[in-house]
């Protein structure tokens, strides 16, 4: 555990973290970019989830749609991750003590697991059903859970702003 806290302290005590804390415009700027990126992440994931639920893009094979959308999702996720980490490192100890932050990180992991389970197990026979307007139950469940997890992630993110002491 001390390795973890050394790791946290290394980032929190860095000059960069100090700059983000002290500069009046840097944190809002990073946060604004985070919002733009996360909107693209969540919005694009919802489109894929709605396809899995059979509610949108029903004429487009699931695999084709996923190949088109996921590069956008991952590109935006990289930006959201970097900006998120920059905000985190500016006040790491306080964020780790915030229940909504911890919940958000857990939910991100769960959303990731849901995606891995879908890709590795549920979508093994994708070519057999990807053209169906309404995919099999296991795919619809993956889509429904994904929407649920991402709504919770955004809600936790918003609640962090209301429960963290101002800088």
């Amino acid at each position, binding site marked *: 555990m001390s390795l973890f806290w050394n790791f946290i302290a290394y980032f929190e005590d860095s000059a960069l973290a100090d700059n983000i804390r002290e500069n009046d415009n840097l944190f*809002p700027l990073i*946060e*604004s*970019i985070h*919002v*733009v990126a*996360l*909107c*693209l*992440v*969540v*919005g*694009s994931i*919802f*489109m894929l989830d709605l396809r899995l639920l059979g509610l*949108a*893009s029903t004429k*487009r094979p699931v695999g084709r749609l996923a190949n*088109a*959308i996921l590069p*956008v999702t991952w590109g935006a996720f990289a930006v959201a991750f970097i900006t998120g980490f920059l905000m985190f490192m500016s006040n790491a100890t306080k964020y780790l003590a915030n229940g909504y932050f911890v919940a958000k990180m857990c939910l991100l992991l769960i959303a990731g697991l849901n995606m891995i389970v879908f890709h590795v197990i549920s979508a093994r026979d994708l070519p057999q059903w990807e053209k169906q307007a309404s995919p099999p139950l296991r795919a619809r469940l993956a889509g429904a859970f994904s929407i649920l997890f991402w*709504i919770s992630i*955004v*809600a936790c993110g*918003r*609640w962090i*702003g*209301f429960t963290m002491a101002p800088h």
Partner: protein
Amino acid sequence: MNALLSELSKWLAATSLSHSIQTAGWIIPTLQTIHILSVAVVFASAMLVDFRMFRLFEREVPLPQVMQRFLPAIWPVLVILLLTGSLLIIAEPRRSLVNSTFQLKMLLLVIAIVLTATLQRGTAASPAFWEQDRGHRIAGRLVATASILVWSGILLAGRWIAYTQAG
């Protein structure tokens, strides 16, 4: 104009609805969460169509089909944004109405709506409209570029409202 908005803020802040929303601590973050999730849907939809104008997304699918999939959803979701946004204004009128960042956001929103409607209407007039010749392709890409910048500006301004509010 600002004097008028200032009067309106005072009046709104004195309404019982404003008081009720302010008193129950969970309402504002909940409204903001719904607002951000709706922004995510509108923003991702607009961005994917803009990327398609540059042939960076779903290039093997005809443009009218891509637009038909992503653009119509924007309008009903904008109504949700208008409703949650209005409630947020009623709750904290001085935070937004007399805030120049909020006013900029509203101006950008009008421009974004015009740009998105322009893309949709061109294709509605004739399916090949944006791809019929070099001139239309360039015009389409200019509209798409403006759309990417203006929608991103709306999100950036939206987050920045919190940092420029009066008092």
